[in-house]
């Protein structure tokens, strides 16, 4: 039987990891609600954001050691540029991949995003190689003690910043004109056009926003876990599972789904075996898909999933 300290520890690290899934799931939901596309390059944005921030803020070997970057810019600047890089790639993906295929089926567009994620992973591999990188923690200092569990300072950063990002996003959707236009566009795209809301412009904003959000997630988690070129795939899949758990279209559900997923994974890894971490995630996916097509939060049945062609 695990001790209560051990449980607390597992739950805490689960929430830390789950925060990242929550942010990535929010990106999924934002893009899905506005454009109807499930964007499987969501995780690559996190990887790119993190790698760019790492490269600008610490010494890194690039292009198989042919180039050394030692700019050592302050972290906030590096992080901002990392986010900007991801946003730029998100915008390019929309303009070059999604917008031209807007009359194709949602499934074809999903394939476009999978293709983009493979291409982006390849580019990251070329530039940064297979080595794992770790960002220096945002603040130095001893970890905190919480009910016998150890809480690192970076975990506090992760949770705190996740709260800040999520709250800002909700305020953005609730109170700004663009936010309202995005919601209108997802509620009724045709009527939104009659108001003068350009759906392509909304799609572009959704991609930019989601890419930025994922990049932030990647950057805050990079000091906790090592970043490697191929982490995007898993991050995408976990974010996707969290999104489905939340009912596909519900941003609150996505956040809750992400946190639950993180905790379940952490408990599975800690109490059973770390080898089962991912197995549990996908077991959850299968169960949710089979049993509650509407997601955990609301009783809505599979309508949303049908719309996605799933």
């Amino acid at each position, binding site marked *: 039987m695990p001790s209560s300290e051990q449980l607390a520890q597992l739950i805490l690290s689960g929430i830390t990891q789950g925060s990242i899934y929550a942010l990535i799931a929010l990106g999924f939901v934002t893009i899905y609600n506005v454009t109807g596309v499930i964007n499987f390059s969501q995780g690559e944005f996190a990887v790119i954001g993190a790698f760019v921030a790492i490269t600008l803020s610490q010494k890194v070997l690039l292009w198989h050691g042919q180039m050394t970057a030692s700019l050592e810019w302050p972290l906030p600047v590096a992080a901002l540029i990392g986010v900007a890089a991801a946003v730029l790639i998100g915008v390019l993906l929309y303009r070059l991949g999604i917008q031209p295929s807007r009359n194709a089926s949602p499934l074809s567009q999903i394939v476009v995003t999978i293709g983009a994620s493979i291409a982006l992973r390849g580019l990251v591999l070329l530039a940064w190689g297979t080595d794992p990188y770790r960002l220096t923690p945002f603040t130095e200092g001893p970890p905190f003690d919480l009910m016998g569990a150890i809480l690192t300072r970076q975990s506090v950063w992760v949770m705190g910043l996740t709260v800040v990002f999520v709250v800002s996003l909700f305020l953005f959707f609730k109170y700004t*004109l663009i936010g309202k*236009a995005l*919601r*209108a566009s997802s509620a*009724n795209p045709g*009527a*939104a056009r*009659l108001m003068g*809301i350009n759906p392509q412009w909304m799609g572009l904003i959704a991609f930019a926003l989601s890419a930025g959000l994922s990049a932030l997630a990647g950057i805050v988690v990079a000091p906790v876990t090592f970043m490697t070129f191929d982490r995007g795939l898993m991050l995408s899949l976990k974010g996707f599972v969290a999104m489905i758990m939340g009912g596909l279209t519900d941003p609150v559900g996505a956040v809750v789904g992400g946190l639950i997923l993180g905790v379940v994974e952490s408990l599975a890894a800690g109490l059973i075996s770390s080898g089962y971490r991912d197995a549990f995630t996908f077991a959850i996916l299968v169960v949710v898909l089979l049993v509650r097509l509407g997601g955990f939060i609301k009783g809505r049945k599979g309508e949303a999933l049908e719309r996605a062609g799933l």
Partner: protein
Amino acid sequence: MLKVDGISTFYGHIRALNHVSLDVNDGEIVTLIGANGAGKTTLLNTISGMLHPKNGDVVFDSKKISRMRAEQIVRLGMSHVPERRQVFGSLTVLENLTLGAYCRVSRDGWKAIYQDIEKVFGLFAILEKRKEQLAGTLSGGEQQMLAVARGLMAKPKLMLLDEPSLGLAPLIVQEIFRIITELRKSGTTILLVEQNARAALRVADRGYVLENGHVVMSGKAAELTADEQLQKAYLGGRSNGKG
């Protein structure tokens, strides 16, 4: 103000509109009547840019708009209140109204828009009571009023109203038609699509009758009301002259 000149619109290979022409002059209420599937909604959608005609032109305020997209056309001062209301159900009444003025924010500024929201509340008192409520929770009649109010928020010169009385109780239908007459008094030009031909002809100056994508009849509202054939087909065949 609006000139539709020989447009034909297709859904794939199916021709929904066949060489349709009509005019709407400044300050008029013009109604389009016809059975289900006659092409009335297709015509409105083609005018507002949701669909594009294969041939023919739509000219609005002496600008050719048949190749423009809906989100551009609304900026020229044409507001389309679509069939079945199409309010943003997951947004509040106030948010719906704000988005109605989406195309004006950069031009007129927020102050003017808030003033217009107050004006719209003057016309639709019920919406003020419901302003923080989600539009999806309103009754059908309230949603229709919201749809018209949202359309007004664009400050249109021309309003396209698609079946505003559809599925509403008689009392509310009356209310809707009262509002339409009030809009005309305030100088808005209206192109009204209705299945309730009798009521539509009562408020309109002129009318066009659409059948299978053709205009089969047009004229002054009073002439159309008096027309025997039309009475048989659309006005329930009663010819007691009272309407």
